[in-house]
């Protein structure tokens, strides 16, 4: 039996990094929007959401291909 440790390891690494990164980014966006009146926080929040949307678009791209 040969376990493809390299593939398993990369799945683990990529999953961990992307999940934590995306969730962190999106959370920052949500918290930024929840703060009332702060323009900087609001702009930062939209930037964070844009990056998340890009990640979702890449996900759809992966599924289609």
């Amino acid at each position, binding site marked *: *039996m040969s376990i493809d440790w390299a593939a398993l390891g*990369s*799945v683990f690494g990529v*999953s961990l990094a992307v*999940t934590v990164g*995306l969730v962190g980014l*999106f959370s920052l966006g949500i*918290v930024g929007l929840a703060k009332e009146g702060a323009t900087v926080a609001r702009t930062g929040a939209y930037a964070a959401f844009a990056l998340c949307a890009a990640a979702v678009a890449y996900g759809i791209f992966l599924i*289609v291909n």
Partner: protein
Amino acid sequence: MEHITLLIGIVIVTALVFDFTNGFHDTANAMATTISTGALKPKTAVAMSAGLNLVGAFISVEVALTISKGIIDESAGVQPEVIFAGLVGAILWNLVTWYLGLPSSSSHALMGGLIGATVASVGLSGVNGDAVAEKVLIPAIAAPVVAGIAALLATRLTYRIGRDADPKATAKGYRAGQIASAGLVSLAHGTNDAQKTMGVITLALVTGKVIAPDADPPLWVIVSAGLAIALGTFIGGWRIIRTMGKGITDIQPPQGFAAQTGAATVILASSHLGFSLSTTHVVSGSVMGAGLGRKGGVIRWSTAGRMLVAWALTLPAAGLVAAGAALLADQGDWGVGVVAALAAAACATIWVAARRKPVDHTNVNEVEAEAEAEAPGVVTTAIAAVTPPPAGPLTATIPAPAAAPAPAPVAPAAPAAQPTTL
């Protein structure tokens, strides 16, 4: 010629039924957390998931003609009887686990069914044991661990970032994020799982010389496979949704978001980096991870334990039923007919049993009191109900194949006589 056409027809119908149970069983993967956190209303959630499954079925044109990923030896050509028997085993296992509300992998059920049917009709030499370990056992252990750790860390992080924020102000954002992740899971599911059925049907058509070996699947195959999985998703396996969304742990919006994002990421990463993981195992793992990630979050280990038992039993149980079905189906046309009749009777029995305590979109989020109070009883029923189906067709087959007693699959109602080795 006539009987080949009939057999191929039966295989196609059975494949579509499997596809339906697949959608039905796996709605929970995409939508359980979305429903339990209230991000979407139950009906809306399953409708969205069904639509995306249907879209997913159409967007990828590559149909794998190696339905078993090298686990069984397909070089000599797979007999339609073997495919048929394998599908019957997978369908019955999917229905039994649905009745018990246990999420289990539909792909494992299909592989188990094919392995069992192959062993029964060709012998052990037809199965590649190394591939079983490599493609089934290791991923089954790896999936929940990978997804669980990712979801756990993501949950911790999101609670830390949002610790000073007003939960009311952030809940809406979390819901939006969760819906997006759930949509990705649904889309990926439609692409992967509808393809499996298309592959099975195409293979059956090739075997019956209806289409050329290197032909693309006909349009009606793509349409019917997509519709079957979408319909199954829309009907919704509410029992499994309840277990996944409420039974394992109580999920709040940030957890639901972290769990679903983790699941979507792991599913996409695994299918594109060459280490394919079962969607069901991934989502179960990420829900548990999210449960552990919140301070004060509690995992109901009895539910998780039952789920693990179901995972471990999936391959052998589906395999045993399929082996019995293959032995019968190998007897000829009447054998195929008897298997079809027995399978239909078993499905009807499980359906009727489920009607007695229906779970649907109205009560999908009400679980606690009942589940907690019944914990020991449920385990016993689980064991009792899990055991007979494999035993049914087998005992029906070995002593008297010609007699083909009809009452065999009705056995799930009766408690198991033999001790189970769990």
